[in-house]
C-alpha cells in the first residue's frame, strides 16, 4: 500500500476512495446479486444479458441508472416471479407422503435448480418422483448414473416415519437394486443379441439380419425377452 510513501496523504486518499466505492456499490444493490467484482478489480453487471464490464463502481452505477439496465432488471424480476410461482405450484402439487416429508426448503432449492437445468435432469427428477411412488420405469441410456442417483434419492426420500420400522426400507432398496441389476443384465443381453446379428422391427419384435449367419441352436430373443 505504500506506493505513495510511508506517511503521505496517499494512503488516506486511497481509503477515502475505497469508502466512496463501497457507498456507491451499496447504492446499486444491497445484496450484491446484480453485479460481480472480477479478479481484475473491474465490475460486471449480471443483470444485463451481455454482462457488460465496467472499470469503476462509478461507471457501474451510471450504467445501472440507464434505460437498458432498468429494462433488463424488470425482465429479470418478472422471470423470478414466474419461477417462484411455479415453485409454489409444484409444492402444492406434491402430495405424496415421501416428498412432503422432506425438508421443504431443500426441495424448493432442488426444484428451483431443476427448473433451469436441461431436460435430462428434469427427467431424472421425474424418475425420482416415480421411484418414490415405487413404479419402475427406466431411462435406458444412463443406467449407471441413474443407479447412483436413484440410490441417493432413495436415501433422501427415506421418510422420517419409516425410521421406526427399518425393515421394509431395506427391502425396498434391495429390491430396487435387484431390479436395476436385472435391467442391466437385460440391456447387456439385448446388446449381445444385437451384436450377434438380431435386429428389431418397429413393433419391438426381433428378427434375423439377412446378412448375418446364425448357429442352428442359437437362442431366440423373442422367447427369452
Amino acid at each position: 500500500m505504500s506506493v505513495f510513501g510511508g506517511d503521505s496523504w496517499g494512503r488516506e486518499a486511497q481509503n477515502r476512495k475505497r469508502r466512496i466505492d463501497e457507498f456507491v456499490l451499496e447504492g446499486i444493490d444491497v445484496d450484491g446479486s446484480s453485479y460481480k467484482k472480477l479478479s481484475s478489480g473491474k465490475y460486471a453487471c449480471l443483470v444485463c444479458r451481455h454482462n457488460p464490464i465496467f472499470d469503476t463502481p462509478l461507471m457501474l452505477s451510471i450504467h445501472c441508472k440507464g434505460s437498458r439496465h432498468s429494462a433488463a432488471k424488470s425482465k429479470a424480476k418478472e422471470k423470478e416471479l414466474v419461477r417462484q410461482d411455479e415453485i409454489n405450484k409444484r409444492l402444492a402439487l406434491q402430495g405424496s407422503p415421501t416428498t412432503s416429508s422432506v425438508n421443504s426448503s431443500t426441495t424448493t432449492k432442488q426444484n428451483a435448480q431443476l427448473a433451469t437445468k436441461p431436460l435430462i435432469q428434469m427427467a431424472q427428477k421425474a424418475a425420482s418422483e416415480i421411484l418414490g411412488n415405487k413404479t419402475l420405469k427406466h431411462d435406458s441410456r444412463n443406467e449407471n448414473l441413474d443407479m447412483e442417483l436413484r440410490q441417493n434419492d432413495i436415501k433422501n426420500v427415506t421418510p422420517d416415519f419409516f425410521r421406526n420400522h427399518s425393515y421394509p426400507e431395506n427391502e425396498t432398496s434391495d429390491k430396487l437394486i435387484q431390479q436395476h441389476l436385472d435391467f442391466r443384465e437385460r440391456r447387456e443381453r439385448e446388446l449381445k443379441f444385437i451384436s450377434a446379428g438380431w435386429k428389431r422391427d418397429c413393433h419391438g419384435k426381433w428378427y434375423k439380419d439377412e446378412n448375418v449367419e446364425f448357429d442352428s441352436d442359437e437362442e431366440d430373443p423373442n422367447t427369452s425377452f
Partner: protein
Amino acid sequence: MYLYNLTLQQATGIVSAINGNFSGGKTQEIVVARGKILSLLRPDDLGKLQTLHSVEIFGCIRSLAQFRLTGAQKDYIVVGSDSGRIVILDYNKEKNVFDKVHQETFGKSGCRRIVPGQYLAIDPKGRAVMIGACEKQKLVYVLNRDTAARLTISSPLEAHKSQTIVYSICGVDCGFDNPIFAAIELDYSEADQDSTGVAAGEAQKHLTFYELDLGLNHVSRKWSEQVDNGANMLVTVPGGGDGPSGVLVCAENFVIYKNQGHPDIRAVIPRRADLPEERGVLIVSAATHKQKSMFFFLLQTEYGDIFKVTLEHGNDGVTELKIKYFDTIPVTASMCVLKSGFLFAASEFGNHALYQFQAIGDDPDVESSSSTLMETEEGFQPVFFQPRGLKNLVRIDQAESLMPIMDMKIANLFEEETPQIFSLCGRGPRSSLRILRPGLAISEMAVSQLPGVPSAVWTVKKNVNDAFDAYIVVSFANATLVLSIGETVEEVSDSGFLDTTPSLAVSLIGDDSLMQIHPNGIRHIREDGRINEWRTPGKRTIVKVGSNGLQVVIALSGGELIYFEVDMTGQLMEVEKHEMSGDVACLDIAPVPEGRQRSRFLAVGSYDNTIRILSLDPDDCMQVLSVQSVSSPPESLLFLEVKASVGGEDGADHPANLFLNAGLQNGVLFRTVVDMVTGQLSDSRSRFLGLRPPKLFSVKVRGRPAMLCLSSRPWLGYIHQGHFLLTPLSYETLEFAASFSSDQCAEGVVAVAGDALRVFTIERLGETFNETAIPLRYTPRRFVLHPKRKLLVIIESDQGSYTAEEREAARKECFEAADMGENGNGNINQMENGGDDEDKEDPLSDEQYGYPKAESNKWVSCIRVLDPRTAATTCLLELQDNEAAFSVCTVNFHDKEYGTLLAVGTAKGLQFWPKRSLVAGFIHIYRFLEDGRSLELLHKTQVEGVPLALCQFQGRLLAGIGSVLRLYDLGKKRLLRKCENKLFPNSIVSIQTYRDRIYVGDIQESFHFCKYRRDENQLYIFADDVVPRWLTASYHIDFDTMAGADKFGNVYFVRLPQDVSDEIEEDPTGGKIKWEQGRLNGAPNKVEEIVQFHVGDVVTSLQKASLIPGGGESVLYGTVMGSLGALLPFTSRDDVDFFSHLEMHMRQEHPPLCGRDHMAYRSAYFPVKDVIDGDLCEQFPTLPLDLQRKIADELDRTPGEILKKLEEVRNKII
C-alpha cells in the same frame, strides 16, 4: 516425436560378390554387396571367412565389378549404384578403408529404368568399363593411367539404343585389340507400335557386340545376331592367347557359344530327372576359373546344380562345348572361385558357404556336349541326371545369413535377463527359426567338476616366452589346487605352490619365476625350484593384491600398502611402504609399457568411494597423482592399455591410450582415460552391467588385451575395427575367470562358476547377436506366440512343391533306381531336412538340393507347434488338398468352452499367373490339446478370398478376406459371419485392435482406422491415410498411432490428430460416425504422418521392445536383407539438437562412399521427417582426427564427448 535410427545387425544377405586382389599382393579377397553395405571378406589360413571391413554406403548397390590395369598387381572395384554415378574404389590396406578413386556423374539418382547402374561389364584387360541401364542407356568409360601411374577415367562414350531392353552385358576378351562389350538386347520399338500384339509375339532377343575404338575414341555397334529368346546371361570366354574369345550365352535349357564370324556351338543343360516338363532350366550364376594352361566355367542353375563347362578349341575356333554335372549346392546370387582353391558361394537365401575344391570334375559324370546334341521333331533331346552328394567340393565354413526375415517377435520366453528375438528366416527347405540373443556366442570347450566350490582361478606360464599356459591354479576357501596343462589337464603337486592355504593371486613374475600370494605372505618360486617366502609382519594378513609382470603391490589389513619390484637378479625386493587412510577395496597396477622397467601407475580403490592413482616412480613413489570419486565403493580395478595403431587388419588409427576400468558395488562399470604422463583421469563413462558388482579380468582377444567383466552375466570389452565395444556374452553367471591358452585352444577363458571349472572361447567378435537356428520345413510365413504355454505356432508354405507323401515316394523311387535300397534313410525324419547342418548320412538332404519342383499351382504347407526351449516340434500338421496357410492368430471366443483356439487362414489352389485366382479360401479353427503341444481341427469355414489377416476382437475373430473386413463368431460347425465392412480399397493384410478400435492395413493403401459399434453391430471406417503405402509391416504404437513399413523400404508413423480422436470418442449419439462422408470414397478423417524414414531395405516386421533390462522401449525392425534395426525415441530436446547437428555436419564432411547424397537417400520416396540417422553419426570415429576435431569444435564439444554421446545412445538401445 523424434527417433534415432540405428542398425543393430547389418544386413547378412548378399546381392553380388566379386573376388580379386584388392589389397595387392598374393592374397585374394572377396567384396560383397549387401544391399546398402559393402564388405571385404577374406578366408583366413584355416579357411574361416573373416570380415575385414564393412561400410554402409547409404545407397543401393546394384552391381559390382573388379578390374586390373595391365601389369598392375591390384584390383579396383567398380560400383554401380542408384546414385547416378559410377564409382571406382580402391581398398587401402593400411587404413583398412575403401578409398574413392573416381566418381563420375552421368544421370539422375534413384533406381531408374534408363539411368545406368544396373549392369557393369569390364574389358578383361582392364582398359574400359561399360555401365548399362535396364533400358536404352549404356555408357563406356576408358580407363587408363597417367604419368604418375594413377588411374584415370575418360569422359563417357555413349552406346545408347533407345527402345531396347538389356538383359545382360559382359566384356569380350579379344586380347589387346579394341575392347568389345557384348549385350543381350531386345528391341521393342515394333511391339510398341503394333497394337494387335503380333509384333510383341515376334519380338526377338539379339546378341550385340559394341566395339570401343580406342583410336577414334568412340563406340560403335559392331555386330548383332539373333539369340534364343530364353537368353538371360552372358559369360566372357577367355581370349587373346588364352582361349578362343567370344561369349557363352546362357539361355533356357541351353548354353551357346557365340562369337563374331563363328558358328553357334550349342549344348543342352542336363535336367534333373524329376523335373516337370513345363519347367525349363536357367543359369543363375557363373564363375570362371582361368589358369595359364586351361580354363573352365562353373554355371549354376536355378535348382542349385553346378555344371562345369569346358570348350574344346583350336586354331579354327571352338569345336565342342561340354557341360558336365559338377555338384549341387544351394542356389547362389554369386559364386567366386579363388585361386587358393576355394569357392565362395553367396547364397540367394540362407547361410553363405565357403567350399574347398577336392577335384575339378575330371571324373566321368553325366555330360552333355554340343557334338552329341540331337535334334528331333519335338526339339532337342534332353540329357538327364540325378543329383548326388558333394564330390568335387567340400564345405569348410559358412557365414550365417538371416535373409530374408519373414517375421519377427521379441519376447522373453526363456526368462533371461534380456528378451530373445525370434525370427523366421530363409526360404523353402533352408528356412529356419532363429533365436537371437544380444551378446557374443560362446563355444564351450570343457566343463569339469571340482571337489569343492572354488573361489578363484588363475593360469600361469612357466616362462614369459612360452606360447601356452603351464598351470591352472584354483583357490578354494582353505586350499589351493594346481592343475598342469598338457595333453590332458591333471592335478600336480610338484609345482612348488603352497596348497594348504587359499591364494590371493598367482602369476608369472620376472622372466621365469612364479609367485603365489596367500593371506600370510608371498611365495616366490624360482625357475630352479628355489623358494623364497616373504611373511607378513605381525598378525596382519594380505587382503588385496595388484601385480604386473615386474611389480607387485599388496594391501595388508588396516590399509598398509607394500610395494615390491623384481630386481636385476630376479629377486623380489621390497621398495616402499605406504599407509592408506582406510582399508583398501581393490588394487591394480598398469601393465609395463614396452621397453620400460616399470609401470608408473598404481590404482587403489577405497571404501570411501574413491579411486586414487599413485605413482610407482622411484622419484615420487606412492605419491597420489589423482583422485576420482565414484558413486559406490569400487570392487575391482583393471588397467587396459590400448596400443597405438594405424589401421592394420582391424581398426582405424588411434593413439595409445590407457584406460582405467572399475567395477563398482552397485553394478556399474566405470571407465576413464588415464593420462600416460601425469596420471590425471579424464573422460569418464559408466554403464550399468548387472546386479552384481562387476569383477574385471584381463584376457586376450585376437592377440589384443581385452577385458572380461563378470556381473550377473559376463561381458567382454574389446576393440573391434577401431571401436571399443562392451558386449554381453551368452553364458551363465561366472565367479572368477582367467585367460587360457593351450595348443588346443589358443585364446580361451577359464572360469569358475558353482563347483565347476569351465573352459570356453569367444566367437564371432564384432557381432551384436548370437543365434540359435532351428530348421523348418517350408518357407515360414508368420508365427504367433501361445500366450500361456510359451510355445510358438508357425505357419509355413511353399509354392511349386510336391507334398510330403509325394516327395517321400519319389525319394524311395530314386533310391531304388540308384540301387541303394532302403537303408533306413527312408524314414520320416529326414523330411525334417536334417536338423543338423552336417547331415552326412542323408545323401540327398532337401536343405542342400531343394525340394523337387512341381507345377506352379501346387502348394505345400504346414502348421507347426514348436517349443523353443527344447527346439522340439511338438506338433506338425501338413495341410492337405493344395491348401496353403497365410495367416494365423490365437483367439479366445467369449463364453465358449474351448479356451484359446488357433485360427489359420488358408487358400486352396492359389495362382498368381496369368491371373490371380484361387479355388477357395478357408479359415481353420484348431483347438490346443496336451497343454498346447498339439492341435486338433475343430472345423473349417470356407470364405471367398484369401484370409491374409486374422485378429481376435472382443471375444470374436476379425478376418481380412480380400478387401472385406469381417467379424466372425464361433459356431458349432463353422464360423458365423456376424458383421462385415466391404469398403476397403484392395486387400487387407494386417489387423490390429485396441479397445473398440480396429487398425486395418491395406496392401497398397496404408492404414484405415475403424470402430465397431456394438449397439448397431456395425464396423465404421472413420479415418485413413492420404498416402498410398504398400504395407509390408505394421505395429500398433498407441491409441492414435500406428507404425508401418512399405515395400519401398520406408518406415513411417501415422497419428490421428488429437481433436479428431476426441471427437470420435465423444460421439454420444453415434450419428456422426455413421453419416459423416469423406471425399472420393475416402474416410471422413485423415491421419497425419509424424515420422518418415527411408531404411533402404524392405522392412518385414516391426515391434516395440526393450533389449536391455530396465531400458526404454524402441521400435525394432527386421528386413528382407536380414538386418535388424531400432528406432529409439529421444527423451530430451538437447539430444535431438545435438544429434541433428552432428548428422548435418557428418552429411557435409563425410558424404557417402558411392556418391548418393545422404539426405536424398533417406528421403528417397518421402522427405525424411524427425528421424536422425544413427548409422551416419556412428561413422564419426572413422573420420580423420582433424575432421573429428573440426566437427566437434562446431558443436562446442570435444571428439571424446561426441564419442561418449554416441556410445550412450547406443547403450540405451542394446
